[in-house]
């Protein structure tokens, strides 16, 4: 029950993009077309889930027992960078079709602060293993939801007459603001 609440709140109430402001770069950069946004979202969800598992193990099996918490930032970023590489190599071998779909987005994920943010937030909140994994999947799906919604709005925006200085990032951020406002309505739904 507690896990379900955490899962739903990670998607809707404390959405990674619209509440924690993590992963803004891909959120603005890869949200011009719905299908590429969806691929990016799924790639992020995938990497986030694995990162959640691995970073929890590193934190609880190595860093905390040996009191090495000052190595947290360095080890998390190195793990994420190498994980992305491994995932990329694995997908290329295992499923060329999936690689075609996700391929170009994977390297971009290394510098996506949502992944690092996930590892750090889970460590900061002192989540148990199951909670960390739930949080990882939920946050990834929350990111996917936000970026796909954004892309579908932007596809419509292309057809309308936006004032020139607002074109691109300006209007995208304002739309994100209105989305954040709408998501605010989900607050308090978790009992």
């Amino acid at each position, binding site marked *: 029950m507690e896990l379900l609440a955490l899962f739903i709140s990670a998607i809707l109430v404390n959405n990674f993009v619209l509440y924690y402001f993590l992963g803004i770069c891909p959120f603005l950069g890869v949200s011009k077309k719905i299908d590429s946004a969806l691929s990016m979202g799924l790639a992020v969800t995938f990497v986030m889930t694995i990162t959640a598992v691995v970073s929890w193990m590193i934190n609880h099996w190595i860093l905390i027992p040996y009191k090495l918490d000052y190595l947290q930032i360095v080890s998390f970023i190195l793990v994420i960078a190498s994980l992305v590489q491994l995932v990329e190599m694995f997908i290329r071998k295992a499923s060329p079709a999936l690689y075609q779909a996700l391929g170009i987005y994977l390297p971009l994920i290394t510098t996506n602060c949502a992944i690092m943010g996930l590892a750090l937030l889970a460590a900061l909140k002192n989540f148990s293993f199951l909670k960390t994994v739930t949080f990882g999947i939920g946050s990834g799906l929350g990111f996917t939801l936000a970026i796909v919604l954004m892309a579908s709005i932007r596809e419509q925006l292309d057809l309308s007459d936006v004032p020139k200085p607002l074109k691109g990032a300006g209007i995208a951020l304002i739309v994100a603001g209105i989305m*954040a406002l709408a998501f605010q309505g989900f607050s308090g739904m978790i009992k």
Partner: protein
Amino acid sequence: MAAKSIAQEYLKGLWDENPVFRQLLGLCPTLAVTNAVINGIAMGLATSFVLIISSVVVASIKKLIPSQVRIASYIVIIATFVTVADRFLAAYFFQISKSLGPYIPLIVVNCIILGRQEAFSSKNSVGRSFVDALGMSTGFVLALLVLSGIREILGMGTFLGYQVMGAWFKPWIIMILPAGAFITLGILIAVALLIEQKTKSRS
């Protein structure tokens, strides 16, 4: 491309290549910590510290690093100084470190820093890299200051905690909410573009 003077190297970070308004880099911290001016300043200074030191270090050892492992080395160097900043704040400015939460460690994935190493410090002298990093930092701090200033004044009627609006003023709560961050930054970026277009068309 003609070599820039040192002054130009510094000034470009303030406007022409302002990391937030013009290059759209480092938006996550820009949005997340600008609900109060004090948080914006602390974040700006911590990022500047990491950016300036990393740039100097990278510029001084650039010849020793083979290009295949340069990104990995930069990341380790950046992560080291981020940890130093994070621990320093937690030890001596506990309240600020608490209110910034995970956003200080997240400086490590701030694209401004890795971006400057890759685009500038790895190709230029130590001195120039220092000036470049200083300029970018000033630009970043200014951007955070403008954004957090607008949000704190309109959202709470205060600036750095001091009341600046009269009693008649009813705070716009939306400015403190995430939505306010997105909308204000969107408008500011549009204004920056507008100014740029106007000055370009005149010259």
